């Protein structure tokens, strides 16, 4: 019997997608293993949605190949194994939510009775069980998005691709979706595309960074954080600290240097991060300065886009 637990969930070889002369994706080589959620990031037009669409089989590659769970995208063997929250896809506004989701479940092999139970389960997960008999046109944008996430959870998919799952969702429901991904990630591998880097940093174990259709980097969040070894701390503050914070903190014995990022955070380069953490916290307490968060390493946003 084949052990699929360590087999790649996604394999891309020299994958490219061109629209006329424009290269939406260019020569992507990528092998992703099952496990913690994978972040897919990059600026607008980087090729995130194109990559997601290729993985789902919505579009065909111009060159190269893709394999999802060992099969070509669009293959019938992927039914129930791969699911997705596609960007801008809508359910039929004329038919009620329950009816459409039950139909999806039936296509995944559930009997009519099982399908109804399964749909109630996934709607429960996104807090919208009462929407079974509601038409999508009667729901808010956020609720429609949650319904779309619910359809992606029908059955026991091994790989779920979520394109901007929390875009347009209010904070409590965005948190609920993150919790849902965390909860399911022991049995399902998620790939999550988002512009919310804080969210991805907290949620994902590895990150794929695309820019102008090219794969710039791929690795675990921690591996990618090259500052961990050199002991950098990031201090996030609510209100700006007085100017003398940098001077005073640089006088601490365990601190090498302090700089301020464009985002307003302080990057503290240390000789010893543990001692420096204690010393910085003492300095903040003595001066009655408030702070939000002190963390090891640089934030994902700072690593990708910071210039300090």
């Amino acid at each position, binding site marked *: 019997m084949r052990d699929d637990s360590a087999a790649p969930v996604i394999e891309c070889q020299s994958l490219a997608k061109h629209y006329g002369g424009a290269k939406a994706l260019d020569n992507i080589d990528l092998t992703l293993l099952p496990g913690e959620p994978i972040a897919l990031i990059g600026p607008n037009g980087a090729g995130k949605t194109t990559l997601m669409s290729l993985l789902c*089989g*919505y579009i065909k590659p111009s060159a190269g190949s893709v394999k999802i769970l060992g099969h070509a995208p669009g293959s019938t063997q992927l039914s129930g194994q791969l699911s*997705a929250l*596609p960007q*801008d896809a809508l359910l039929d*506004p*004329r*038919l009620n939510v329950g009816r459409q989701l039950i139909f999806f479940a*039936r296509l995944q092999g559930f009997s009519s009775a099982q399908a109804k139970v399964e749909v109630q389960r996934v709607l429960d997960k996104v807090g919208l069980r009462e929407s079974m008999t509601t038409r999508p046109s009667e729901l808010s944008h956020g609720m429609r998005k949650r319904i779309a996430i619910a359809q992606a959870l029908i059955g026991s998919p091994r790989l779920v691709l979520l394109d901007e799952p929390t875009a347009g969702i209010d904070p409590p429901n965005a948190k609920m979706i993150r919790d849902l991904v965390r909860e399911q990630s022991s049995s399902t591998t998620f790939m999550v595309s988002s512009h919310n880097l804080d969210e991805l940093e907290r949620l994902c174990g590895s990150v794929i960074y695309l820019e102008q259709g090219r794969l710039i980097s791929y690795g675990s969040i921690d591996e990618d954080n090259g500052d961990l070894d050199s002991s950098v701390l990031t201090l996030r503050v609510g209100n700006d600290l007085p100017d003398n914070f940098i001077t005073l903190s640089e006088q601490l014995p365990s601190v090498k240097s302090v700089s301020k990022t464009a985002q307003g955070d302080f990057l503290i380069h240390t000789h010893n991060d543990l001692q420096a953490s204690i010393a910085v916290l003492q300095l903040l307490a003595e001066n009655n300065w408030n702070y939000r968060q002190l963390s090891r390493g640089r934030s994902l946003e700072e690593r990708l886009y910071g210039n300090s």
Partner: protein
Amino acid sequence: MKVLILAQDEVLRLFSTRRGLISLFGFCLIWMGVLVYGIVPAARFLVGATESGLADVILPRIGIQALQLWPAPELAVYWFVSLSLLPALALLTSADQTASDRARGTLRYLVMRSSRLEIFFGRFLGQLFIMMSVVLATLVSVLIVIGLNSAEQLSQALLSVPAIIVNLIVVLSPFIALMAMVSVVAKSARQATIFAVILWILASVLLNFLTSTFPDVLMLQWSLPGSQIRDLYWLSEWDTLTLAPIPLIHTLVLLTVGAFIMKRRDL
């Protein structure tokens, strides 16, 4: 089997949407009008014309001599009316097999669970079931009228029912297949209908040119879907099936082209 689940959903979709129910209600009203003010008086006229010998003079001239060969005059008129009306109805009702689902993105949800070909053929089959129901319902209404007039004619008419059903389904298949193909490239039902009309006009012009240029190539006159219908007016009962290969070939060709596009098109 996923194709059957998709086909079943296509049928149920008709009864689950306001637009579908309004269309059904509208069709029932129109059919009642056709039956009461069209088929019944025409059948009476046919009986009278046959008795007076007028039918022998008029009907061959307008190419529908076979009306006299059916076991009941209502059935004869039904055959004529259904051959004229149902292809247009099939074109209209089956226009949105995949078009709006693609434009809206709903197909993206479906292709995660079934193949593109299963969706394509499932929707086609569903539309075929819908038209089969239309044929059955309209035929039953005509049989009721025949039964009210003469029990003897009804028993004879019932023997012709299988031939009519099989034949009308075969006749309607290429029209549904045409809309399945056009729906793959259109963004809405309306656009699909417009594409079908444009395609039809262009194909007719091209065929007229080709038939006038190459008059010896007889196959050309059978190239358009529905081209055999005018000849079906001359036939009755099981004889009508002699022309069945033509619509079946049309259906096969249109479905092959549609499936080819469906498989390759971006969603």
